């Protein structure tokens, strides 16, 4: 790893480089769909290290957070497809934090436009904007972007490495490169001679990398196939190393108690009870937190629990109701955005039926299975961090600032993540470990948050209110006017991540509201930003997590007011706007055998949401079981344009739906006295084996561009369930979680 770190830190590699006993390929001169001002300004080709070959074999770098989505395997497959290696026979490493591993796809979501209507030109523009992430040092996993980011770049990385190895073999054998083939980590000569990549590595390091084209889809061995995941055996045998599993010589264990009131410190604390407790080595005052370092995590936790702290009062409204009053007050301000404004929403045709609805969704925690944790070692002139994180360069930057070190003096090691869902794009947990390590020079310290600490100190999905006014006439949608108010994840979360003030219209705030592929003649969506109160952040599907509910539920209400079948009603709106959206609806209709009629005691709901480049339709079926509502079946259809690994993608679609359904049924974070009331899973439950519906997933490839996989399954889940419950009970759910207003099977 030492040599990999050194190379990646240089950020820019021209050509290939010799490493100890082998070669590192600088592989990618980035794609230029249009003249590229960034590159001209910069004045150099960007070549990223993703492939290493040495005596021990081939190592691929997959510098994205493996948090369950299978990116380690899929990313490696993209390289392996062109490099002709078996992903099961090579080493795949996450690699260090490095500018070279920037995410080129995530930032392109920030471009104006609805996404689904993007022309090829806009798509190329998106890629160029995405490359700005390089200058912002954004090595981040988020925005359902990894495959979109890596699809071309990593295949080119593999192709260039392959051709360079072939050139080295050609030189050695005295034949031309085009007479050679590659197969399973070997270059094969016409006479059958096989040279392993390892034996060619030293020679390949000396020659100019060869650029080449990409193979046609028809020749793919890995892309589009179910490839066994390379983390599966480790994760089935308890040998995968998560953040909490890092063990270092002489390591101590820490626990923390942070202010329950966000953004404030304490007036005082008494740690006398903790001082003599078993295993305690050090009690630390961190200003807005106290921590204990001990010989065992549980002993540290017992001691930190024994510290009596008087916290400063919350500087924001202290109760859920008062916070929501403040959110509602923002409707009185000028809208931050009006990103869809078609026709005239104020003048209705004679005889139109008007529907008015206010929806209200709670703040939500991420509740990753692995609680927040990080391990840090401060050596006086350097810092090492081990953490399950979604943004190594952000971790590095913030740790360097805390420690007063240059970024290069901070090494970030990314472990497996026990769930991410957007929580681990933040750096509060690594910052805390760094704060502790700075007071314990020479001693590695692992900080693990209790579940209670994790749940009550999140960057939450913002609570949101939507006010919709809509109209139907003669069975058709005439008008939709939606207003959405919440704290802004872009202003607060993206601002935190980038270290930049975020101004202007906030697209993420109205994502999956303004850009739904529905042809409605009079259609206006306004976003209103509430002031910062509770810390908010990126929660799987971000703005689409609430807007998906609002914008689909109003369509369902309109369908019923119009006396129309809800699926046919949506289909009629989607087809003229964007055919792939119509196709996903038709697919769930056919899979579920949708007839528009359900037997007594059965309810069905449909929802459509477009987010992160992917349209997803879901049908959920519920049944009355002894007076309780039980989810029985679900059908999902998604169009990703190009599916890299069907099995992983189906798992993401279902997992995204389960995440949304868990929140819809049970999820809420509420506040009393400024502090979060929910503390552990009994207060914040999720779907379990017995409450999960049976599911079928269909993956389509009709749209011209690649869509994301990790998030788009979440937005349609809650509305599909709410619409199914309406079908069953005749009662509309305009607030979540459903457990308050409906008797759910648990």
């Amino acid at each position, binding site marked *: 790893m030492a040599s990999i770190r050194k190379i990646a830190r240089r950020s820019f590699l021209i050509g290939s480089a010799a490493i100890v006993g082998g070669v590192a390929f600088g592989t990618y001169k980035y794609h230029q769909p249009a003249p590229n001002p960034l590159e001209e300004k910069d004045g150099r080709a960007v070549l990223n290290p993703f492939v290493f070959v040495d005596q021990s074999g081939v190592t691929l770098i997959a510098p994205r957070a493996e948090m369950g989505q299978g990116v380690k395997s899929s990313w490696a497959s993209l390289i392996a497809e062109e490099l002709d290696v078996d992903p099961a026979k090579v080493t795949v490493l996450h690699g260090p934090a490095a500018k070279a591993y920037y995410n080129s796809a995530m930032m392109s979501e920030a471009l104006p436009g609805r996404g689904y209507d993007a022309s090829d030109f806009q798509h190329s523009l998106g890629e160029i904007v995405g490359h700005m992430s390089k200058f912002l040092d954004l090595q981040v996993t988020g925005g359902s972007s990894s495959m979109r980011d890596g699809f071309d770049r990593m295949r080119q990385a593999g192709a260039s490495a392959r051709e360079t190895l072939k050139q080295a073999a050609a030189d050695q054998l005295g034949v031309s490169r085009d007479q050679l083939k590659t197969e399973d980590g070997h270059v094969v000569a016409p006479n059958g001679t096989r040279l392993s990549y390892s034996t060619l590595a030293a020679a390949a390091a000396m020659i100019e990398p060869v650029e080449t084209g990409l193979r046609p889809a028809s020749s793919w061995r890995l892309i589009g196939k179910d490839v066994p995941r390379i983390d599966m*055996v480790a994760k089935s045998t308890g040998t995968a190393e998560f953040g909490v599993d890092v063990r270092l010589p002489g390591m101590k264990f820490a626990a923390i108690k942070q202010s329950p009131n966000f953004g404030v410190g304490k007036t005082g604390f008494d740690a006398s009870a903790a001082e003599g407790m078993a295993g305690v080595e050090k009690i630390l005052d961190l200003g807005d937190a106290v921590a204990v370092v001990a010989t065992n*995590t549980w*002993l540290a936790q017992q001691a930190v629990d024994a510290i009596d702290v008087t916290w400063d009062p919350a500087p924001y409204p202290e109760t859920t109701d008062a916070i929501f009053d403040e959110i509602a007050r923002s409707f009185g301000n000028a809208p931050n955005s009006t990103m869809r404004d078609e026709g005239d929403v104020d003048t209705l045709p004679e005889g139109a039926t008007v529907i008015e609805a206010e929806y209200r969704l709670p703040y939500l925690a991420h509740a990753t*299975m692995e609680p927040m944790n990080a391990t840090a070692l401060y050596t006086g002139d350097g810092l090492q961090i081990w953490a399950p994180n979604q943004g190594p360069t952000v971790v590095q930057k913030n740790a360097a600032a805390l420690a007063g070190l240059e970024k290069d003096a901070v090494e970030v090691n990314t472990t497996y993540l026990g769930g*991410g869902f957007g929580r681990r794009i933040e750096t509060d947990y690594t910052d805390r470990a760094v704060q502790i390590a700075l007071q314990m020079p020479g001693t590695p310290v692992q900080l693990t948050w209790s579940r209670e600490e994790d749940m009550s100190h999140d960057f939450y999905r913002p609570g949101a209110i939507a006010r919709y006014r809509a109209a139907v006439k003669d069975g058709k949608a005439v008008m939709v006017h939606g207003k959405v108010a919440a704290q802004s994840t872009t202003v607060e979360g993206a601002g935190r991540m980038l270290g930049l003030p975020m101004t202007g219209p906030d697209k993420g705030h109205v994502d999956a509201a303004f850009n739904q592929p529905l042809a409605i003649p009079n259609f206006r969506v306004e976003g209103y930003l509430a002031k910062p109160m509770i810390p908010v952040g990126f929660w799987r599907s971000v703005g689409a997590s609430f807007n998906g509910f609002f914008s689909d539920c109003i369509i369902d209400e309109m369908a019923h007011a119009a006396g129309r079948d809800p699926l046919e009603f949506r289909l009629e709106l989607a087809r003229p706007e964007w055919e792939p959206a119509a196709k996903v609806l038709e697919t769930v209709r056919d899979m579920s055998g949708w007839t528009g009629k359900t037997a007594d005691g059965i309810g069905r709901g449909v929802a459509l949401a477009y987010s992160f480049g992917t349209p997803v339709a879901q049908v959920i079926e519920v049944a009355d079981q002894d007076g309780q509502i039980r989810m029985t079946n679900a059908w999902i259809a998604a169009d990703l344009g190009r599916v890299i690994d069907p099995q992983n993608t189906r798992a993401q679609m279902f997992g995204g739906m389960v995440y949304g359904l868990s929140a819809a049924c049970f999820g809420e974070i509420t506040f009393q006295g400024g502090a979060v009331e929910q503390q552990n*899973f009994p207060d914040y439950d999720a779907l379990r*084996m017995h409450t999960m519906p049976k599911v079928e997933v269909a993956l389509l490839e009709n749209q011209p561009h690649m869509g994301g996989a990790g998030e788009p399954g979440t937005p349609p889940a809650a509305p599909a369930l709410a619409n199914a419950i309406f079908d069953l009970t005749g009662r509309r759910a305009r607030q979540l979680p459903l457990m308050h207003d409906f008797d759910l099977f648990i």
Partner: protein
Amino acid sequence: MSTTLRINGITHQVDLPDDVPLLWVLRDEVGLTGTKFGCGVAACGACTVHIDGEAVRSCQVALSDVWGDVTTIEGIGTPDTMAAVQQAWVANQVAQCGYCQSGQIMQAASLLAENPSPSDAEIDEAMQGNLCRCGTYPRIRAAIHDAAKMMKEA
């Protein structure tokens, strides 16, 4: 105070207070990190191990209360010699983030030891204490059925 524990067939002398939960003995003292901390209140099942073959939440068993031989995920099989239930997990590509899977596997192994061919309802009953936030449940169910078949054929 020194306590003697038998874990995965090996005897360990542990020098920790009596009330330290088995979970934290395993993870921070013995170095068996395959058993995971999820909630500390027996609400998620990530810390499931076997004591004398019975699935228990190791976050709830104090060191001084450990009544028998402890088996953890590391004790039922290794990457090179996986138990049938682990093989079924790999064959069904169950794990996503994987954090809960040690507990899921230990719970499933205990179910299969008691009930060699569990029905869906019996799987629901046995597995409902094990939380998975990724939503791997359909494949867990399939893997348990597969493991049951493999164990019968073995």
